[in-house]
């Protein structure tokens, strides 16, 4: 008896939202979802920066086979960064701002953009370019992490720390 009463209460509670909605104009009449917050822009920029870095490393690995082992390892870490960052970006189905997600991602201030993806021709210049790109990407992440929730700030800080260690590896490879 007690269990039946409890079920009744649960069923009544579950029906309340439906009753409330049935008296309204449906979900289409609800206010549009809020615009994406600043953390979304930071996240999209971070994703775009990782994609650009992966592309640069791909070019460098093809062009300088002698550096392939070192550069492949660094690119693998960028791929892990990208995969984790993508899991943090949730695009609501049917979001009126969905097209905004498909538009070119904003750049974090100071981060190298896709337009600079082309590498310099020589090995030394390319390694120098990659160092600068890693350094710029890490610095941009540090600036961006003040605008995001704590858990994302931790991820961005960790990615930035990883990328700053890449600079030392590239410097060492350059001799």
């Amino acid at each position, binding site marked *: 008896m007690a269990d039946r009463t409890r079920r009744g209460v649960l069923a009544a509670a579950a029906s309340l939202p439906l009753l409330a909605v049935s008296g309204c104009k449906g979900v289409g009449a609800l206010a549009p979802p809020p615009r994406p917050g600043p953390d979304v822009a930071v996240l999209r920029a971070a994703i775009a920066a990782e994609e650009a870095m992966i592309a640069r490393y791909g070019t460098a690995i093809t062009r300088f086979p002698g550096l392939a082992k070192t550069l492949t390892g660094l690119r693998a*870490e960028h791929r892990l960064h990208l995969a984790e960052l993508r899991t943090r970006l949730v695009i609501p189905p049917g979001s009126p701002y969905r097209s905004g997600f498909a538009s070119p991602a904003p750049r974090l201030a100071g981060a190298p953009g896709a337009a600079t993806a082309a590498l310099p021709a020589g090995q030394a210049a390319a390694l120098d370019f990659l160092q600068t790109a890693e350094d710029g990407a890490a610095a941009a992440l540090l600036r961006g992490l*003040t605008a995001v929730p704590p858990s994302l700030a931790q991820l961005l*800080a*960790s990615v*930035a*720390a990883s990328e700053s260690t890449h600079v030392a*590896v590239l410097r060492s490879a350059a001799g």
Partner: protein
Amino acid sequence: MSGTAVGPGTVSALQAALAAEHAAVYGYGVAGAYLDGPAETTATAYWNAHQVARDTLEAMLRQAGAQPVAAAPAYELPHKVDGPVSAVRLAVLLENRVTAAYLGVVAVSDPAVRQFGARAMAAAAGRAASWRGRTVAFPGFPPSAFGS
């Protein structure tokens, strides 16, 4: 850090980072005794860096009106250190723990403290990588955190 309106979460995170720095200062004292040549020079430089970081954290905590945690008289080492290999292994572990402690600092709400924590993370991650001889994708997080 402003010195005013510092929340308990910020103080707690800074205290945890300070505790890790205290342990690192002690640990490098042990590790350095088993290293020589360039490794000893590196260990000395990193030992100095941890002392500077310790002093900085203590100053930040005092500015926030908190009493900085004191160093323990001695620390139990995570493993036996009896030569260069185990000394380097200890150094890596110390840096990993310091990096993880600063990861907690990054989670606080104060933007300046966040950035301080992130820079300290990068420094510790760099030192860890130099001892380890390789980089990791997510410094500060446990290796299993993201399947890396």
